[in-house]
C-alpha cells in the first residue's frame, strides 16, 4: 500500500517540517511538545455545544488552543493537530480566532479547513511511521491492522482509515 504526505505538508516551510519531525520521532507524536515548541498553549476545556476546538490570540503575542475535553482522546489529538495546522498554515487568517465545530467547519472557507485537516493527519500520523507500521503488520501476517494502528498512533479509527485510503478523504 502506498501512502504519502498531503499537499498541505508541502505548503510548510522546510524549517517547520524539521520542527514537526523532531516531535514525530516517537509514536504517538508528542503534540504537547510540538505546541509548546511553537509557543502555543493548549487547554482542555468545556467548549460551547458543537465545538471541537479553537485557536485564538492569547493576548501576549501568541495563541491559545482549546480542545473539547469531553471528546474521545483520539479525537482531541486530531483537533489539537488541526488547530496547530491552522497556526502553521493560516496564521494570517486567525484574526480574533478560528472556532471549529465537530465537522471541522469554521468561519473560514472549505479550502482552509481541508488544508488544516490534511496537515493534521500528516502531523499525528506521519507517513513514514505509518508505512513502517504497515510493513511490520504485513511481516507478521496481520491483515486487519487499522484498529491496531489507530491505537498505536492514538487517533480515531476513522482518521486512520482515511490515512490508509480505505474510506473517503478529508473534506
Amino acid at each position, binding site marked *: 500500500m502506498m501512502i504519502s504526505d498531503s499537499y498541505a505538508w508541502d505548503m510548510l516551510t522546510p524549517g517547520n517540517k524539521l520542527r514537526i519531525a523532531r516531535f514525530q520521532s516517537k509514536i504517538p507524536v508528542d503534540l504537547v511538545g510540538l505546541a509548546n515548541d511553537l509557543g502555543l498553549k*493548549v*487547554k*482542555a*476545556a468545556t*467548549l460551547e455545544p458543537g465545538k471541537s476546538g479553537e485557536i485564538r490570540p492569547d493576548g501576549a503575542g501568541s495563541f491559545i488552543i482549546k480542545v473539547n*475535553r*469531553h471528546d474521545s482522546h483520539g479525537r482531541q489529538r486530531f483537533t489539537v493537530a488541526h488547530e496547530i495546522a491552522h497556526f502553521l498554515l493560516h496564521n494570517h487568517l486567525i484574526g480574533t480566532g478560528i472556532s471549529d465545530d465537530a465537522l471541522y467547519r469554521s468561519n473560514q472557507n472549505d479550502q482552509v479547513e481541508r488544508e488544516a485537516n490534511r496537515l493534521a493527519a500528516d502531523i499525528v500520523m506521519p507517513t513514514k511511521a505509518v508505512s513502517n507500521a504497515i510493513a511490520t503488520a504485513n511481516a507478521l501476517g496481520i491483515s486487519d491492522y487499522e484498529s491496531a494502528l489507530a491505537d498505536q498512533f492514538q487517533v480515531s479509527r476513522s482518521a486512520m482509515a482515511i490515512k490508509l485510503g480505505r474510506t473517503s478523504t478529508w473534506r
Partner: protein
Amino acid sequence: MALRAFGDTPYMPLLSLRPAELRAIEELPEKTKDKLFPIVVLRPWLSANMLETGLERLADAYNDRPTIVIVSALELSDTPRLVHEQLASLRLPAGGYAKWCQFIAARPNFVPAIQITDPGHIAEQISCFHALGRGMAVIVDNRTLPGLRALATVVGGLTDGGIDTCFVIDLGKQTSDPLERAVLVVAYCTSIRQHCPNATIAISGSSFPADFVGREQQEIYERTLFNAVVGQLGAEGLVYSDRGSVRAEKQSGGGLPKPRIDYPLDREWRFYRTETEGFPGYRDRATHLLRATRPDGARIFDAQIRVWGTLMIERTAAGDTSAIKTPARSTAARINLHLHRQTFYNDPVGLHDTDDEWAG
C-alpha cells in the same frame, strides 16, 4: 504522612459506585478532581458479578488519585451475586477487620474508612491502618453517633490524638432545622476534639428532596448547617461534605420520574419539572432554565461555569437528543454541577476558571 492531608480539601462528597455519580465525577475538570476528596461507598456495580468491575469504573472516572473508601451496609438482593459475598467478606470483623485491611493495603491509592460495627475489633483495625500510613476516615452516622465519645477516645489513643485522621459526621437526611442541629454538631465536634485534637472533621448530610410536585427550589440545608458550625467553631479543621446532591435515603421505586432539569446553586437547588414526557419535556425545561431570571433580573443559569453539566443543559436546550434525555443523565448533569460548585464554594475565580492544561 497520609496520602493526602484531609485539611487541604474544601469538600469531601460522599458518593457511591453508581453510574450517575461516577459519570458526574469523571467529567469534572481535572483541577476540580484534584481539589475535592471523595468518599466512595463500595457497593455492587449494576449487575456486575465482581466488585472489581465497579473499582475499574472508579479508576476510569477518578484515576489513581487518593480516594477514601468504605464498604456499603448490607444491601438485600433478590439475586445474590459473587460481589455480595466479596462485600460480606470485607465486612467481617475477625482479626481486626483483617480482610478489609488486606483489601486496602493492596490498593495503593485507597484511604480507608474504618468499620465500627464490632467494638471488639476496632482498635486492631485502627492500628493496622495507622501503620499503613495513608490516613484514615472515621464515618459516624446517626446509628453510631451515641458512641462517638468512646470511639474518639479509642481513635485518639491509637493515632496520637487524631493525626492523619478525619472524622465524618454523617447526619443522613437533613431537615429544615439546620441551625438547631448545628448546636448538636458543635457538641459532637467538641467531643471529638477533646480526644483527637489533631483530627479533621467533615460534616455531611443530604437534603436533596424525593418529591418535586409543586417544588421549584430547595435550600441546601447541609450547607447552611456547615456554615453555622463554622460560624461557631471557625473553619480550621472543618470540611464540608454532602452526598453530591443525591438523596441520603434509598429510593423506593415508583416508576420513571417526569422530565426534570435540576440546577445547583451555592446554597440551593432549582428544579424545572414538566408533565411533558420524553426529550421534548427535557428540552422545554432546559430552555426555560436558560431564560430564567431572579427577581433582580439576573440570570440563574451561569454559562460561564464551563463544566459538563452546563454543556449538557445547553445541548438539551439546543435540541440535541443525545444530551439530557433520561432521568439518569439529568441526575449526572446535576451532580457534576453540584460537585464543581461546592468544590469552589466562596471561590468565584476557581468556579469559573475551568480550563485544564491539555495532557496530550
